């Protein structure tokens, strides 16, 4: 069976994100003063072949920890469903 994993990756809260910081500055200079906060992260959609939903989740979690994220500086949320 095929399963799709939707992964949202964010920098851990204690870390200043250079991308968001620089973009907020651009927003201010372009006159968008009513923007209060901005958070930027990566999202990924991965499709895997697995015998069951549970095994698909385990596989994608492994992928996240091993490759797709860096646990030292990133947290992630995962949603898996059958396609």
């Amino acid at each position, binding site marked *: 069976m095929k399963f799709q994993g939707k992964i949202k990756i964010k920098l851990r809260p204690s870390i200043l994100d250079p991308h968001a910081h*620089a973009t907020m500055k651009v927003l201010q200079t372009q006159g968008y003063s009513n923007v209060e906060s901005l958070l930027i992260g990566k999202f990924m959609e991965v499709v895997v072949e697995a015998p069951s939903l549970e095994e698909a989740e385990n596989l994608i979690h492994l992928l996240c920890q091993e490759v797709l994220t860096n646990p030292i500086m990133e947290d992630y949320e995962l949603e898996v469903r059958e396609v």
Partner: protein
Amino acid sequence: MKFAVIQFPGTNCEIDTAYILKDLLEQEADIIWHMQDDLSSYDLVILPGGSSYGDYLRTGALAKFSPIIEAIKKHAEQGKLVLGICNGFQILTEIGLLPGAFMKNQNLKFIGDDLFFKVINNSTPFTSSYSKEQILKLPVAHLEGNYYIDSDQLKELQAQNRIVLRYCNSQGLCSEQANPNGSVDNIAAVLNERGNVLGMMPHPERMAEEILGGQDGLGFFQSILEYHKERKEQ
């Protein structure tokens, strides 16, 4: 002394590094393709600079699967020396041989320039030929040089004197203005707990000859040769 210079797909400083070792220092140096898995006959392993796997996804992230990684870890566990330069340093953090992680430079721009570095710890196998607090001028060339480490680990590094180089200005002041990329505590080079694995962001191989602007980078290689000579005598 026998050097192994590791080449991943996308590495581009392996030829420069091997040139310094072989042509300048007349040492034995082989460029090792990442698919090999045995480094037992080598005294020192260098992970040179470049853009392994294009620095795609995260710098160094995709290199961790290569067969050579296990051989590098084994080399380090046996107490032998491992030196990671720029991209090599990033790979060493991704495979857990060194603490911390790298993000994009604070100004989101690549930096290609000669910067000043202060030698914080000169009692390591890589920095023994430098004097303490010595100021070096070395080239940097990176987009993700923003070194992150959490506050506990930072205290640990400071307590164990494992911060080897810090970004400074021409007078040796490790100030905020002298920090080119946002790295925590101006950290530019870090040692592992055991003291045999060093990761550094500047490129010593690009500042080892007067014709290219100076020899401040030569000391890292001379220190390694000195360390190896002493161990052989024991």
